[in-house]
């Protein structure tokens, strides 16, 4: 049971800034994802919450108590490492009971507790085995067991599925989410895999270059990206960007794109200059009277849908259309956009321009 509040957290390693003033709130019981490309500062943020790194400045509140300078042993936060970090000289039982032994719990209580946890994780039969011979999934379960056995205030997980085979990841991610729902404990989860983040998270923080780009629910982050980076990073294939020179006006619901007027969500700001129109592949429809003329470059068949790669005067576009639609390479088609889903960006700042679609999703202005 814990609410974690991060306030203006910053971490420098010498001249290198790993995390720039970041703020967000992790509500009690939330499954919270820290998402970003490698080197973006997400793991450093996680380690600061756990106490493995001390922040250069800023505050971390755990249930209202400031803990940013406390040693990890006094924070009551569990950590699951990417490489599991099971103690190699101990067997499974000793690994799981190790956090309890440090609290001076009686031998009988430890035994009961380990039995309970191993039952939840389905590892009762391997308690007396050395950890060396376990499979990746079983090691992951033991690492989880070591984390949950002492019922900490919160769990930190550093890409816990990163070391597993693709096939097993799927299974483990479901298991993890189910475990979280059962225990209801606050979980902070670091990943670079946007699908994993979308699939498992209640909330997502997207980080890039030491900065929090956006903070919100998976749906908000996907539908209402706050920056070009988020729009590009989330989604596969990622959002299409059409670069153009133009202007938008407060209150208007269309924009001049070349010779065409394109319908967009009603804008809430006046911006002029180099703009970017962002549209998701599934919000492009192909027809003979579409507003942007394109030539089909390639078709990727994906079962229920197909990705059509188009060449237009604004560069390459990708459209996700129903697989029953007959499209052939070399066809000339018109592309039109689902107006209510379009986000416009200011190219210079990389930020989304405020509209009725995304109003209110930017916690950082």
């Amino acid at each position: 049971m814990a609410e974690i509040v991060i306030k203006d957290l910053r971490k420098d390693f010498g001249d290198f800034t790993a995390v720039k003033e970041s703020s967000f709130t992790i509500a009690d019981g939330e499954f919270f994802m820290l998402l970003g490309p490698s080197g973006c500062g997400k793991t450093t943020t996680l380690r600061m919450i756990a106490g493995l790194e001390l922040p250069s400045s800023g505050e971390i509140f755990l249930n209202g108590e400031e803990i940013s300078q406390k040693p990890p042993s006094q924070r009551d936060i569990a950590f699951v490492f990417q490489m599991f970090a099971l103690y190699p000289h101990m067997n499974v039982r000793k690994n799981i009971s190790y956090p309890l032994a440090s609290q001076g719990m009686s031998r009988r209580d430890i035994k009961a507790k380990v039995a309970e946890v191993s039952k939840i994780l389905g590892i009762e039969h391997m308690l007396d085995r050395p950890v060396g011979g376990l499979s990746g999934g079983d090691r992951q379960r033991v690492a989880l067991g070591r984390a949950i056995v002492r019922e900490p205030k919160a769990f930190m997980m550093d890409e816990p599925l990163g070391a597993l085979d693709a096939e097993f990841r799927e299974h483990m991610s479901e298991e993890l989410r189910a475990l979280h729902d059962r225990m209801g404990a606050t979980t902070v989860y670091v990943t670079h895999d946007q699908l994993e983040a979308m699939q498992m998270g209640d909330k997502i923080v997207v980080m890039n270059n030491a900065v929090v780009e956006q903070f919100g629910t998976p749906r908000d982050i996907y539908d209402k990206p706050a920056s070009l980076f988020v729009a590009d990073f989330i989604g596969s294939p990622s959002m299409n960007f059409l670069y153009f020179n133009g202007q938008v006006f407060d209150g208007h619901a269309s924009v001049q794109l070349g010779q065409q007027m394109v319908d967009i969500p009603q804008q809430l700001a006046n911006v002029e200059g180099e703009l970017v129109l962002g549209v998701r592949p599934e919000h492009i429809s192909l027809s003979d009277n579409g507003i942007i003329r394109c030539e089909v470059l390639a078709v990727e068949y994906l079962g229920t849908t197909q990705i059509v790669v188009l060449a237009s005067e604004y560069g390459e576009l990708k459209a996700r259309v129903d697989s029953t639609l007959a499209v052939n390479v070399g066809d000339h088609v018109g592309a039109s956009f689902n107006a209510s889903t379009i986000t416009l960006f200011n190219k210079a700042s990389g930020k989304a321009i405020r509209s009725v679609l995304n109003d209110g999703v930017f916690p950082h202005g």
Partner: protein
Amino acid sequence: MSYSVTEPSSRQKWIAGTLVITYALITMVPLLWIMMTSFKTPPDSISYPPKVMYQPSLEGYVNLFTTRTRVSPERLAALPPPENFAEEIVRNRNMVIAGPSKFGGRFLNSVIIGFGSTFLSVFLGTLAAYAFSRFKIPLADDLLFFILSTRMMPPIAVAIPIFLMYRKLGLTDTHLGMILLYTAVNISLAVWLLKGFIDEIPREYEEAALIDGYTRFQAFYKVVLPQAATGIASTAIFCLIFAWNEYAFAVLLTSGTAQTAPPFIPTIIGVGGLDWPAIAAGATLFLLPVMIFTVMLRKHLLRGITFGAVRK
């Protein structure tokens, strides 16, 4: 027949095995000869051609541990019958046991000084190596180089300053002095070797222990040390072998109370002629502790450093 690129063929294994065994046998011949000599009688030990088959005798060991005086046959006959086998061997040479020799004490000195300095080197070396490996230390690389630089000349090159220093400090011919000296020589080796081993241990283990509610020292003691056992064992063997075999400083700085076995064993030669079996017996006994120590730690030397708790 199946063919593997990485596995050597049985023919290659056979050739390699033969070479290794031949080499081992050749290097073992002198040792074997010393051990054989220790069980010979003095006449057998100097007979020509050398005797490979002989009647084994414990005379060398008896002579090593005792001092003896020659007595006239009349007095010998007047003595009561010998109480033990040692007395019997000595009387066959027209002598009686006058008392114990100094070998026992010298051997004990070697044990105290050898193992004491080994323990101290490994103890300090482990702490220093851990600090160099895990903490941000200003000028760490320079300090490590400085530590290593003490090995860039033969230790005996500084014998005279050390001799003068020890005389001033009253450390000459003391156990403490010799332990400190051998520790000083070994510590650079220990720090460098152990740093390599500790660098190999993933930090996650300690971090996991910190998270699990242990202090930094507990994490070091309970998690890092067991992982570093291999490195500690091999470092200890190297340190012990140096301290155990060291001769030059022992000759220079010890003469009585703290004299170790290496400078003592050759002095046996002077007592009543060339008593080769006694010298060989001394050398044989002297070999044993290092041999036992190495065999005991052999398991650690052969075992890999990590055994798969971190996924590769």
